């Protein structure tokens, strides 16, 4: 059963935290990520896991979104086969030109306590605007 709450942007609280979750980053995930970004040395496959937005999507359902802006801070490249724990929260929300955005943020830490990275994403919550503007 889908227990996620429909997004009510007006009521979404800045600072709301999501339940921490974890996954094991495998060598296969790293290899596939490197294949995707055409970079044999790409060190942060965590980017493709979209962990901040994934945390939001575990709690809320909506009509989808488009990534408008994303920041990524590198601290330590993850090591394959280590379990990674993600802590995520709503960092901000804003309205611009009549459209609504939410800003999610997450940090990833591995099972040895190494801080891996921090990601901050601004998502436009009206994804159809992309097609209207760019086709």
């Amino acid at each position, binding site marked *: 059963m889908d227990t996620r709450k429909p997004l009510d942007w007006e009521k979404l609280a800045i600072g709301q935290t999501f339940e921490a979750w974890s996954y094991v980053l495998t060598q296969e995930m790293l290899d596939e990520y490197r294949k*995707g970004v*055409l970079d044999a040395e790409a060190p942060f496959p965590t980017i493709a896991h979209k962990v901040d937005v994934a945390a939001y999507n575990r709690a809320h359902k909506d009509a989808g979104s488009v*990534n408008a802006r994303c920041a990524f801070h*590198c601290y330590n490249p993850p090591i394959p086969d280590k379990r990674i724990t993600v802590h995520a929260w709503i960092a901000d929300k804003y309205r611009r030109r009549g459209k609504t955005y939410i800003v999610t943020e997450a940090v990833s830490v591995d099972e040895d306590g190494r801080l891996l990275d921090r990601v*901050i994403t601004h998502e436009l919550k009206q994804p159809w605007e992309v097609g209207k503007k760019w086709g």
Partner: protein
Amino acid sequence: MGVVRAFTAGDVVPSLVKHMTQEAINAFEGSSGRSGPSQFTDEETARHTLGTRGTVASGRMSLSFALELLRRYFGADLFNRGGMVDVRFLRPVRPGDTLTFTGHVTGVAQEANGTRVIVEVAATNEQGETTAIGTGHCLVPRGFLPPEEG
């Protein structure tokens, strides 16, 4: 190991070219274990969700390319342990696009442990249209700077 060198505002970051394919997009999306159609991997889902004529690449692919641009410039030893990039996505990137990422140093700031080098980055497609812009920075420790700058 990083190389000892100086950084000055106006320095040009060597460019990086990426040819986008649906295969690469699928690999990126699948690398997290996600399966099932999405606006990135399935044309019908893209049309329904975004209203676009086909699939698009995740902005996080461009983010990864911008990180690669600066990792190659600063060196992995430095950039992977203290570098960052902040990118705004201006246009969709689609399979078949060829993206060129460029950058230049816009500032250097002395800090207690070295020099923070600030870079502007941009991505353009084969039509010359800008698809993303942003900034990044990296703290270069004293040991990686010429003596007069350390």
